């Protein structure tokens, strides 16, 4: 298989050339531990602080508000468990949404088992959380609101600034899981009233295994990883210097190219969505049409199942993902697709394609032509389609 069209950039991205080059010396020649005092370690220490500065600038934050972690899941876990532990005397109520990533949802489930109460807000048919619903569910014992910046499956961008305003007005801490958004769309933590923000390097051409948590000055939360005095004694563990250098370089590059990439991806995204909806019958777009990540396409094809589609796309050199049960390892399709009100059998037929700035219109034409063949073939084998056609003939 020569051709490879990678349309799973929400799962992970390729490592950027700049990031790779900047990381190389810290993987080999300069292997020092930046916490050491000798001169040999100073270069690594400076590289770590430079990367921190780049990230802080990208968010409109102060350098000391950026804390490096092992990735998005750790950041989400730290934000939720850390606030829950630190503020338990104030209250034990947390507000989140039904469409969060499992790193947030399963952490909330864990906290519920520890005696916390969690409100899981509904979303509308496009996956939008209502700031009014957030406000209505705030109680005197609410200690944290955690709403994702943009959804990883359907690409919907949440009204973060409005939710931040609500949280700030009620003096409740506001965390946002920005793993899919950071590096792709503008974020300003001051303007958006964000107290805590999670992000991950490999979602924007940085390396895997590195992420950060933005913690606004003055926010109290317990540590998740105890040990050495790294990260202002809040997150122990020897600095992952190559990873930190890599994420710094990737942020620099992502911020520089953000607008151009977003425009390019949005144009190809919209072209592909329009073509699919026009040319494939019984297809529906999931997620908001405009409040949407520039690189996200998520479409349900009725009467067919997602995993079959993925295998057939793979045979044509196309990498994509699905929210079907078979791909999640459970009997239920994606919780996000169910939360936006899709019936199970339609949710099983979802296809997510997440572009990169390298995806071309020609790539998408090939992909859409392939989808058309695959959908037709799978429908010809589908008893659901047979029944549908029969009931239409009667």
């Amino acid at each position: 298989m020569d051709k490879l069209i990678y349309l799973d950039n929400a799962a992970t991205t390729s490592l950027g050339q700049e990031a790779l080059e900047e990381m190389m010396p810290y993987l080999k020649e300069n292997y020092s531990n930046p916490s050491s005092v000798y001169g040999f370690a100073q270069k690594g220490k400076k590289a770590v602080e430079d990367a921190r500065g780049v990230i802080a600038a990208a968010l409109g934050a102060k350098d000391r508000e950026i804390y490096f972690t092992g990735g998005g899941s750790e950041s989400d876990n730290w934000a939720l468990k850390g606030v829950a532990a630190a503020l338990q005397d104030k209250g034990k109520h947390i507000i989140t949404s039904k469409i969060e990533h499992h790193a947030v949802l399963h952490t909330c489930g864990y906290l519920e088992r520890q005696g916390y109460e969690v409100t899981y807000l509904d979303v509308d048919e496009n996956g939008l959380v209502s700031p009014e619903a957030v406000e209505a569910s705030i109680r005197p014992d609410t200690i944290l609101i955690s709403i994702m910046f943009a959804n990883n499956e359907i690409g919907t961008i949440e009204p973060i600034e409005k939710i931040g305003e609500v949280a700030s007005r009620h003096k409740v801490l506001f965390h946002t899981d920005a793993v899919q958004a950071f590096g792709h769309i503008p974020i300003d933590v001051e303007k958006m009233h964000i107290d805590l923000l999670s992000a991950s390097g490999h979602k924007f051409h940085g390396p895997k295994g590195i992420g950060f948590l933005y913690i606004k000055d003055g926010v109290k939360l317990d540590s998740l990883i105890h040990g050495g005095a790294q990260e202002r004694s809040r997150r122990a563990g020897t600095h992952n210097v190559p990873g930190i250098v890599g994420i710094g370089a990737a942020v620099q590059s992502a911020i520089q190219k953000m607008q151009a990439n977003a425009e390019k991806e949005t144009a190809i995204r919209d072209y592909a969505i329009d073509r699919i909806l026009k040319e494939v019958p019984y297809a529906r777009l999931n997620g908001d049409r405009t409040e949407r990540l520039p690189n996200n396409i998520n479409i349900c094809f009725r009467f067919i199942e997602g995993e079959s589609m993925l295998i057939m796309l793979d045979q044509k050199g196309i990498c994509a993902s699905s929210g079907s049960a078979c791909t999640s390892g459970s009997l239920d399709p994606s919780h996000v697709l169910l939360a936006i009100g899709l019936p199970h059998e339609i949710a099983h037929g979802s296809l997510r394609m997440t572009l990169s700035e390298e995806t071309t219109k020609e790539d998408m034409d090939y992909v859409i032509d392939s989808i058309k063949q695959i959908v037709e073939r799978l429908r010809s084998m589908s008893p659901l389609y047979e029944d549908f056609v029969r009931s239409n003939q009667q």
Partner: protein
Amino acid sequence: MYSEKVMDHFTNPRNVGEIEDASGVGTVGNAKCGDIMRIYLDIDEETKVIKDCKFKTFGCGAAVATSSMATELVMGKTIYEALEVTNKAVMEALDGLPPVKVHCSLLAEEAIHAALWDYAEKHNIKIEGLEPPKADIGDE
């Protein structure tokens, strides 16, 4: 994650389609958990031999492959022999399935049984050892 046999039966499924005026039709599974199989049987009145067998499946790669293999295994057998085709036999014929996909082979066995049950009911005969179908689209 799938064996070559599974991939072969998924990519080139045998006996896909419908049989008009089939002797027996069985549909099992439900759309909720993402697998529906429908098996059509054409059975010789005299010899009770399965002359033709077709399937339609909504489901993952393993669901398609197990349906395809099940139709191959029952083709040419009598209805009594077909009853002996177990999910284990389907799995073995496919060189195994990942653990999370074993239920697909069970569904294939149930689909054959459901089609045989339909045949038995229509023809007012009793097939020793055949239980009424468990799962149905209606279970949703």
